[in-house]
């Protein structure tokens, strides 16, 4: 039964990704991308990795939501914008991703009941993840922190060129 749920989530993930790639409207594509990430999160959960599932939702779906907000910000709002928004809310455009997300929610609710049902046989708790990460893989965490430093410094320097300060041209 749990395997069936897993494959349903997998099909949703694939379908949503294909839809995200083929939409011509950027906002619609983003919505499908979020559904795809949620489906992957459900797959992680069904495989017995609730921590990875939570991270997937918080980091990926959360970050994509922020991206979504930026898209809205960059669109020209006004009368035309409102008309466009009304058009977005009309039927078809939200029905498919909405029902996909509802299906995923339903799966989650079904599985939340029985804690033992995982496809891989063993569930990995957040505690185990932390113990492994800061035990044998401590050096990986340290190297990753250097990676973040490098990304931060690079982004700072590249972002600077777009900032016009007083005194500059």
């Amino acid at each position, binding site marked *: 039964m749990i395997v069936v749920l897993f494959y349903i989530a997998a099909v949703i993930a694939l379908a949503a990704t294909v839809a995200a790639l083929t939409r011509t409207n950027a906002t619609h594509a983003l919505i499908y991308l979020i559904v795809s990430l949620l489906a992957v999160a459900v797959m992680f959960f069904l495989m017995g990795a609730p921590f990875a599932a939570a991270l997937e939702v918080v980091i990926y779906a959360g970050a994509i939501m922020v991206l979504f907000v930026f898209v809205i910000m960059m669109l020209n709002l006004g009368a035309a914008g409102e008309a466009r928004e009304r058009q977005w809310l009309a039927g078809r455009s939200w029905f498919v991703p909405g029902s996909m997300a509802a299906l995923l929610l339903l799966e989650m609710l079904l599985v939340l009941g029985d804690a033992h049902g995982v496809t891989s046989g063993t569930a990995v708790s957040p505690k185990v993840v932390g113990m492994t990460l800061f035990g044998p893989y401590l*050096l990986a965490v340290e*190297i990753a922190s250097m990676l973040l*430093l*490098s990304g931060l*410094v*690079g982004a700072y*320097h590249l972002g*600077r060129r777009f900032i016009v300060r007083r005194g500059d041209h």
Partner: protein
Amino acid sequence: MSASDFLAIAPLLVLAAGATAVMLQIAFMRSVPVTAILSMVALLLAALSCVSAAAITPLQVGALLSADQFSLLFTALFCVAGAVTCGLSLDYIRHHGDEPEEYFLLIVLATLGAGVLAYANHLASLLLGLELLSVSLYALIAYPNRSLLPLEAASKYLVLSGAASATLLFGFALLYAGTGTLAFAELGEKLGQAEMGTGLLMAGSAMIFAGLAFKLSLVPFHLWTPDVYDGAPAPISGFLASVGKAAVFVALLRLFLEADLFRYYKLVQLTGLTAILSMLAGNLLALLQTNIKRMLAYSSIAHLGYLLMVFMICLDTGSRALAVEAAMFYLIAYTATTIAAFGLLTLINESQVEREQVQLQQVSGLFWRQPLLAGLMLVALLSLAGIPLTAGFIGKFYLFTAAVSGGNWVLLAALILGSAIGIYYYLRVVFYMTRGADEHKHTVTLSPGWSGSALSCLLIASILVLGIVPQTLMAYLRSIL
């Protein structure tokens, strides 16, 4: 972790501490000379700490890193190469970017990534090292912020490199699904007895090879190379072509040796095919260039092709040791030579802000104007072409011997053909340099500072010493295998 663990990874710790110190120094007080000196001191200290770490090797540190003579040798090489790059960039970057301090910080971080790659014997550390190296390089390529060309180069590298990393990760996932482990040695044990079909495992290994081949810019994954090398600042092109590639090659070699991917005969044949294509396509395309940077970019494709022959030769277990020895020598020679060749371009472009001068005509008559710089270029080009008395000759001769002992005649034919084409376009640059200066109007005014001259002498000396008295290094390489 015990004290000996810390000593074994001391070079990486010194680099990380150095990066932190440089970052804090930039945060509190901006000063280009102080940052440059601090970075170079950190890099050279890291190289020195390899010597003290060598006493307690081999040692497995945690699950991720393996400290042995092999990793220490290459970490030391990358640190020295990073320090030389810092020294060469000192005057260059002052003219090319405002706030040039972070440039040196990024070089230290990139070298740390290269060091992690040399140490990695676990797929997780392989990926982290690779990403640390690549992310630092994206920013370094786009560093000069007064022109658009570097930005274009960095965007191309970022997008294609991201795709390569995704391919690599997919390969890791397939191997993990089949074996349940990410450590190289365990992978080697379990690949033989995996329940999953070997087809899928081989596909995983092939995807890993494809991802790393992109970073090594082997044909057919080479399309980004000329544009990125052309757009990037000259010292960074040199760093990317030498350390950036050598580190990835070292990691790939270790993966193949420890996980024994030579069991997949078709995969190894694929590397042989890639090697032949890279040697021929790289050299033929280099022939068509009049821009020296693009020419060196194509020639670096060809050189990685020569190196990749090693995997085919390793199939014959009898000549495996010789092949690995040849690869190590070639990597060291190639790193010194490439940094020297791009170093010249750095030194003649120090004060060119708009667009770098790299056309063939622009070096015409260089011998009469700047004998030292022309000498550096001459030695570097002769070494790349594989002319005797230079490091490149010994490296190529080594590969040749290994290929003969492995009986890989097709590869050998491609090596000879590629080298023959190579001599033509390398010597064309020398020909331009010996022309009379008055024949051309495009004269570049040059005045390398004392640091540029000193580094030129150092690079010339190291290439010649490796070419004339290679016995010490050869004996050392043989002893650590």
